[in-house]
């Protein structure tokens, strides 16, 4: 017999950043409908209006304490394109190195601090791996939890060598960077990288050398690696994969199957005269979109971005608009109306393909494409796994995030090799009016800023963060947002403890905090409130 629909309101979900509530309809133990609701408004775009053109360098890193370097990267490149600056090669490298250091930090911090805690949830106590999981990953006391959280502080020491501190430096400025590192800064950075590799990356995470891991090119290679030695199978990566399969993380969290990456890490000799149009041809990590259903890769352009406020708490005219045409006018009464407006996040869209998923999985699927230029980075592993496993899942999405350690580590080494310490780090630019766009890939996905400078001050500043792509509400036409869609089909073993909903939200590394209340679908009366962690 078909059960009645039960509605769970999860408010807050926890261990995501910011305030996110999730509402799911559950029928026969499976999620059949979902709404994601961002619950905090801070109004950064409003604060930036009429301010100094460089105000974004101070304000936007503070939009997010986790992705501050990524915001700073966008803010600097946006001004570079607006002011038509010259950026010397050392500055491009120093910016890339800071961006990469922040991303490397985030791998163990998110993995142990936010994601793996779910694996010690009592819902999984029947798994053969549960006991070992608790030993390693229990919060604060788990052997690898403590190691992982502590070592996550090391990579950002490299950021501090460049910018003075992490988080919240503003060392990237139009025309270059504020710093001019010395030889001892570079050698110290090398030592920090080595420490990270020999104390966590190889012995704990991989159970093998980074070189051996880099040999893995296909899904079959990966499975062969897993079986090759007990050190591989028992590494944190090996145990994640085996336990993930065992508890069924490969069975849900599929999502829309449409992906975006802005690409990032401009090449030090290809973006010295930055323009909006020239960016795709200058980034080492290619930009693009991937449409899973038709298995097609193509280029992405900022001109195709749209924001739809039909279901978002803003009063703005017209249909979906390009961010340059946004006015950011919040409604006063932000009551949740799931047929109407219900979130502070807008629905971010591609002008033709609608909602897209952002994040490490999206990036890695783009890297598997054939649309990029010959010299740009390519890695087909995650795309091959995606095809072999029948699309995305919680398991693959989080694997993709951790797989990124491979090129992040190598690219950091490359930065340290390529810095030329006796050459300039800054070329003083001329301030002028104009429109600019700066983008990057924060660890959690596609991030970009648009700036419009007029009369020597900011006329309009717009930010689209990865979580805006992922946590966005429905479009005017009713297409669900990426996380909303990914929740569909999620099995809920215990409606009093729907850890699976938390898993999906956290696999997106969404930057929000959530709770769960449960409502009777017919009366709307609250039945119970549940913990999800």
């Amino acid at each position: 017999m078909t059960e009645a629909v039960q509605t769970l309101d999860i408010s807050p979900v926890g261990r995501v950043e910011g305030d996110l509530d999730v509402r799911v309809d559950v029928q026969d133990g499976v999620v059949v409908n979902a709404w994601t609701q961002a619950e905090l408004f801070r109004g950064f775009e409003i604060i930036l209006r009429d301010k100094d053109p460089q105000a974004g360098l101070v304000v936007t890193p503070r939009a997010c304490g986790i992705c501050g370097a990524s915001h700073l990267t966008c803010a600097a490149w946006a001004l570079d394109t607006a002011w038509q600056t010259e950026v010397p090669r050392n500055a491009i490298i120093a910016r890339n190195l800071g961006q990469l250091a922040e991303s490397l930090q985030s791998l163990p911090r998110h993995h142990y601090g936010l994601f793996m805690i779910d694996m010690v949830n009592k819902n999984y106590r029947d798994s053969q791996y549960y006991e070992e999981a608790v030993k390693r990953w229990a919060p604060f006391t788990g052997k690898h939890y403590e190691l992982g959280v502590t070592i996550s502080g090391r990579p950002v020491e490299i950021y501090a060598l460049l910018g003075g501190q992490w988080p919240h430096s503003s060392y990237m400025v139009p025309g270059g960077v504020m710093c001019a590192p010395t030889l001892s800064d570079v050698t110290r950075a090398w030592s920090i990288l080595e420490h990270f590799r020999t104390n966590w990356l190889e012995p704990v995470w991989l159970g093998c050398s980074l070189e051996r891991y880099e040999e893995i090119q296909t899904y079959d290679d990966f499975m062969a690696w897993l079986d090759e030695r007990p050190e591989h199978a028992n590494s944190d990566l090996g145990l994640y994969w085996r336990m993930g399969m065992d508890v069924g993380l490969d069975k849900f969290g599929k999502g829309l199957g449409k992906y975006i990456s802005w690409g990032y890490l401009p090449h030090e000799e290809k973006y010295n005269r930055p323009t909006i149009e020239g960016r795709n041809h200058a980034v080492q990590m290619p930009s693009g979109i991937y449409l899973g259903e038709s298995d097609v890769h193509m280029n992405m352009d900022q001109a195709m971005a749209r924001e739809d406020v039909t279901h978002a708490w803003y009063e703005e005219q017209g249909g979906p608009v390009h961010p340059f045409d946004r006015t950011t006018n919040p409604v006063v009464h932000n009551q949740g109306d799931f047929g109407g407006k219900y979130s502070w996040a807008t629905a971010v869209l591609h002008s033709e393909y609608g909602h897209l998923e952002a994040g490490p999985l999206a990036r890695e699927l783009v890297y598997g494409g054939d649309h990029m230029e010959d010299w740009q980075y390519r890695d087909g592993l995650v795309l091959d796994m995606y095809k072999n496993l029948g699309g995305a899942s919680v398991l693959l999405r989080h694997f993709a995030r951790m797989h990124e350690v491979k090129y992040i580590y190598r690219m950091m080494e490359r930065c340290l090799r390529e810095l030329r310490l006796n050459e300039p780090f800054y070329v003083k630019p001329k301030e002028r009016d104009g429109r600019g766009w700066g983008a990057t890939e924060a660890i959690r996905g596609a991030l970009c800023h648009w700036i419009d400078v007029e009369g020597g001050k900011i006329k309009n500043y717009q930010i689209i963060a990865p979580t805006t792509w992922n946590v966005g509400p429905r479009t005017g036409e009713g297409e669900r947002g990426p996380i909303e869609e990914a929740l569909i089909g999620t099995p809920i073993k215990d409606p009093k403890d729907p850890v699976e909903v938390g898993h999906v939200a956290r696999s997106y590394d969404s930057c929000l905090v959530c709770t769960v209340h449960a409502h009777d679908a017919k009366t709307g009366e609250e039945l119970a409130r549940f913990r999800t962690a």
Partner: protein
Amino acid sequence: MANVLWLQGGACSGNTMSFLNAEEPSACDLVTDFGMNILWHPSLGMELGDNLQQMLRDCVSGKIKLDIFVFEGTVVNAPNGTGEWNRFAGRPMKEWVRELADAADFVVAIGDCATWGGIPATAPNPTDSQGLQFLKRDHGGYLGKDFRAKSGLPVINIPGCPAHPDWVTQILVAVATGRAGDLSLDEFQRPKTFFQSFTQTGCTRNMHFAYKVSATEFGQRKGCLFYDLGCRGPMTHSPCNRILWNRVSSKTRAGMPCLGCTEPEFPFFDLAPGTVFKTQTMMGIPKDLPEGVNKKGYIKLTGAAKAAAPAWAEQDIFVV
């Protein structure tokens, strides 16, 4: 054993991220070695939904003893004083903050947002944000000027954008090890042990300051950032150059001007056009002078400094 509850209002989680960089003690050491019982934290906590709300209610009622209540982020009052633009666990966050602050032995505000409003309270302050006991320089804030926690202390303000992890962990350890009596607070309720000296104290560019050798543009290893690039190190109270960031450096050492982020006015001049990374001057004299120095003294000092400056001061001393 001390029960600690940490919540976030209008926040970016930057203070949490900074806190997680701590090493001596680390966040985990606080739990395993110093007996901190972290009741809940938005990034680290296990409890959710009903369990969390029950715990919060138990803290308010006194059923769970709340030793330390840590707040990160602004108190959001918009719209129209309701606080609905920042809801948490089913109600406006500001309502939880009031009740929990009244129940706690110690209330600690971490970062500029919680101390005096910080970036979200920058004009036009779209979220109608306040700090716990200040809004910028105005004493009062959300909890009011006369607020005292159960210990008798007002809110302990640990400003900074973000606060340094050691400033946070060491205050928590001081409280947990019974040394709260040694805490001495300044007029902005900042622990004097950290905020009596200046950001400039210990800066590697001090000799350039002394001889008035200016870094006139970015990307240089030499020169003081105060004269042209808007550095607020001589007017800002913080130990940034005594207790280094991420163990290795500080903004001014790296070449970034101090923004004065431990002072209530941050971001200074509300980021008005022409104020970012540029020293504000009048007739060639900085409008804001090193604390306690008057204009006449400044002119004499810099005249003598320039006259005495050795040749090496104009060259790089931090070389490749």
